């Protein structure tokens, strides 16, 4: 697994997903602490994980402030923000992670087959515990958008 190439694929993927599907331009911050998003987001955060297996296996994880998720979901559904509920937000966040992960792997190596599981919402507090001693490698991205900051992490387990 080439970390630099994987990170470049993840950046290209998240840019394409957010700009194509949500019209949300973004920038990457090299020094941002993703845990800070959990601490500072007004209204809390939503976290989502997606297990994958293939040439290497692990978890893809996405962190987003609830307020940003609400806006993106309203945009996605074509509804007003006040008509968006938690189930809608969870569905949108899962779909975002699914698209980002699938696209990133196809950009990284379109000859390799990665099997993606069904995305799951997880408690944001668990984010800090995803990188344990069993983790082989972790690729983290801190993302700035006009609506709020987002976090993306690929945890390689084997």
């Amino acid at each position, binding site marked *: 697994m080439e970390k630099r190439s994987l990170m470049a694929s993840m950046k290209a993927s998240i840019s*394409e*997903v957010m700009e*194509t*599907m949500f019209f949300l331009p973004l920038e990457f911050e090299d020094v941002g602490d993703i845990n800070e998003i959990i601490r500072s987001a007004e209204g809390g955060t939503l976290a989502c994980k997606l297990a994958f297996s293939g040439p290497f296996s692990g978890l893809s994880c996405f962190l987003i402030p609830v307020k940003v998720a609400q806006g993106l*979901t309203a945009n*996605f*559904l*074509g509804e007003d923000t006040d008509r968006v509920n938690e*189930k*809608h937000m969870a*569905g*949108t966040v*899962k*779909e975002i992670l*699914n*698209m980002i*992960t*699938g*696209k990133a*792997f*196809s*950009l990284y*190596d*379109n*000859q*390799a*087959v*990665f099997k*993606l599981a*069904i995305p799951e919402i997880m408690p944001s507090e668990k984010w800090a515990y995803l990188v344990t001693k069993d983790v082989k490698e972790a690729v983290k991205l801190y993302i700035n958008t006009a609506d709020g900051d987002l976090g993306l992490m690929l945890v390689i387990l084997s």
Partner: protein
Amino acid sequence: MAFNILIVDDSLPMRAVIKRTIRASGFKVGEVLEASSGAEALKMLREQWFDLVLTDYNMPEMNGMELIDAMKNEELLSTIPVVVITTEGSQQKIAEFMEKGAADFIQKPFTPEVIKQKLNRIMGEPEDGEAVADGIDEGLDF
């Protein structure tokens, strides 16, 4: 001619965005209905005629490929074109979709332009450029 489409995806937001994108694309759409699982899709397909099915690949219980298999086993459903909408981008997986009988695949994220181009091709509809050319030909035909 407007085409009746069935969208199959376990994600409600994704079904909504596919529906809006198809309508925004300018593809000739009639009725667009939604199913949240492969089983629900099969039930709807047995009760009503659809010209085209757009299905997610990665769904719990029955995935998009299993839905295609089930449709191929029923004479009335076996000729309905199925387009797989997927995050999968590996050449091997795409080849597998096509071998199984998918009419085409659309990789997420997608744009209205890609949707229209793929659906027009599958349904034998002229591309925008061709439609203009046809119009010019008609004008000169005397």
